[in-house]
C-alpha cells in the first residue's frame, strides 16, 4: 500500500442502562473492503479502544440473521432508522453516527427493547385461530394471486423502523404504529383468519389504535421491506368505517 491506510470514523450514542444519560463516543477503525456497520461494531468489540486511544467497554448491539429478515439489528444510522446489517460503509457519509431507536426503551448502547410491538400484535389478535376440540379439517383455499399479494404484507419482521419514523408514536401517545396494523390486514385477508375479522377490527378501533394515525406516511417511506403500510392503513380505515356502522346500528353480522 503506497498511500496512508484508510480509516472509518464512527460516532456512537451510548448509555450504560435504560435510566442513565447517554454520551457520545468516537471510534476510528481501519477501512476494509465491503465492510458494513455490523462488521465495524464487531471490530470495536474485538478491540474496544476509542479515538482518544483509551480502552473502553465494547459497544453492545442486537443482531441475528445478518441478511435483513429478522429486524433485530435496527438502529438509527446517520439520522435514519434502518438495519445495520445492510448499512454498507461505502454508501454512508462519514463520520457514521449510530444511535439506538429511542422510540423504544434503550437497554444499553444500541440495544433496544421491542416488546411493545409484540404486545401490540397480541392486542390486535394478529394470528389465525385454528385450534378446536376436534380436527377442523382443511380451511378454505386461497387464490394464488391473493397469496402472492398477501406475501408482501407477511414480509414484516417487526423491526420497529416504521414506529421510529412515525411522529405519532411517542411518549405522549399510545399509538401502536403501522406494523401491527398492517398485520391485521394480513390476518383479515387470510380465508381462515377472516372468520375473526370483526374481533381484530374492533381491537384496532380501541385506544392507541388505527385512529391515531396522522398520515405523515413516514412509515411507508422507511419500511425496509417495502410493505404498502399506508395502503394497509387506508384499507383498514374503510373496513373500520363499515364496522363502526355495523356496531352503531346494532347489526349482529360478524363474518361475511
Amino acid at each position, binding site marked *: 500500500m503506497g498511500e496512508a491506510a484508510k480509516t472509518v470514523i464512527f460516532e456512537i450514542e451510548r448509555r450504560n442502562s435504560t435510566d442513565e444519560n447517554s454520551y457520545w463516543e468516537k471510534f476510528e477503525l481501519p477501512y476494509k473492503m465491503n465492510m458494513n456497520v455490523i462488521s465495524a461494531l464487531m471490530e470495536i468489540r474485538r478491540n474496544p479502544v476509542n479515538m482518544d486511544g483509551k480502552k473502553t467497554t465494547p459497544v453492545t448491539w442486537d443482531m441475528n440473521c445478518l441478511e435483513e429478515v429478522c429486524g433485530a439489528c435496527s438502529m438509527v444510522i446517520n439520522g435514519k432508522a434502518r438495519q445495520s446489517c445492510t448499512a454498507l460503509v461505502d454508501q454512508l457519509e462519514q463520520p457514521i453516527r449510530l444511535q439506538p431507536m429511542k422510540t423504544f426503551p434503550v437497554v444499553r448502547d444500541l440495544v433496544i427493547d421491542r416488546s411493545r410491538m409484540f404486545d401490540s400484535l397480541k392486542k390486535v389478535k394478529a394470528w389465525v385461530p385454528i385450534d378446536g376440540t376436534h380436527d377442523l379439517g382443511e380451511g378454505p383455499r386461497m387464490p394464488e394471486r391473493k397469496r402472492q399479494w398477501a406475501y408482501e404484507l407477511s414480509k414484516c419482521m417487526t423491526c420497529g423502523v416504521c414506529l421510529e419514523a412515525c411522529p405519532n408514536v411517542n411518549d405522549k401517545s399510545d399509538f401502536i404504529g403501522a406494523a401491527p396494523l398492517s398485520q391485521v390486514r394480513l390476518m383479515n385477508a387470510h380465508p381462515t383468519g377472516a372468520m375473526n375479522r370483526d374481533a381484530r377490527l374492533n381491537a384496532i378501533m*380501541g385506544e392507541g389504535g388505527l385512529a391515531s394515525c396522522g*398520515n405523515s406516511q413516514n412509515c411507508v417511506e422507511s419500511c425496509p421491506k417495502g410493505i404498502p403500510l399506508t395502503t394497509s392503513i*387506508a384499507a383498514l380505515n374503510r373496513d373500520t*368505517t363499515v364496522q363502526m356502522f355495523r356496531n352503531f346500528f346494532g347489526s349482529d353480522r360478524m363474518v361475511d
Partner: protein
Amino acid sequence: MDNNREFLMRRLHSLLGIIPIGLFLTQHLIVNHFATQGEEAFNTASHFMANLPFVIFLEIFVIYLPLMYHAFYGLYIAFTSKNNPGHYSYMRNMLFIAQRYTGVFLVVFIAWHVFETRFQVAIGNAAEADFNMMENILSNPWMLAFYIVGVLSATFHLSNGLWSFLVTWGITQSAAAQKNATYFTLLVFIVLSVIGIRALFAFV
C-alpha cells in the same frame, strides 16, 4: 383496547373539518368575493347572510360548535405529535407538520377574526359586519398581512384536510389513488386561495 371513544372522536374530528366547516369556509370565501364587485354588492350579500332565518341557530350548530370541537381536539392532536422533519423530510411528512402549524395558527386567527367582526356586532359596537368594517381593518398593512396568512392557512388546512379525510374514511387507498387526491386537493387549494385573496384585496 376495547374502548373506542378515541376512534369515534377522531372520526368526528375528520368529518366536521369537511362538513360543515369546510363547506362553511368555501361559502364564506365566495360571499366575500362579492367585494370585488364593489361595496354595494358585498353589503347586499353580507346583509342577506346576516339576516337568514334562525341565523343564530345556524351559527351555533353549523359554525361555533363544530369549529370549537375541531379546534380544541385538533390542538390536542397537534401537541401529541413529535414532528421529525429533519431526517424524514418526505413531502407527506412536511404537509403533516404544516397541517399542525396552520391548525394552531388558525385557532388564534379565527378567534381574533370573530372577535373583531361578529363579536363587535353582537355587543353592539357595530351595526353590521359590512364593507366599511373590513376596509378599516385591512387599511392597516400588518392586519392585511395577518389576514393574508390567515386565509392561506385556512385554504391549505382545508385542502390538506380533505386529502386526509379521504384516507381516514378509507376512500383513497392505493398510492396511486392518494397521489391523484394530492393533485385534486392542490387544485382545491389554488382555487380557494385565489378567491380568498382576491376578496381581501378588494377591500384595500
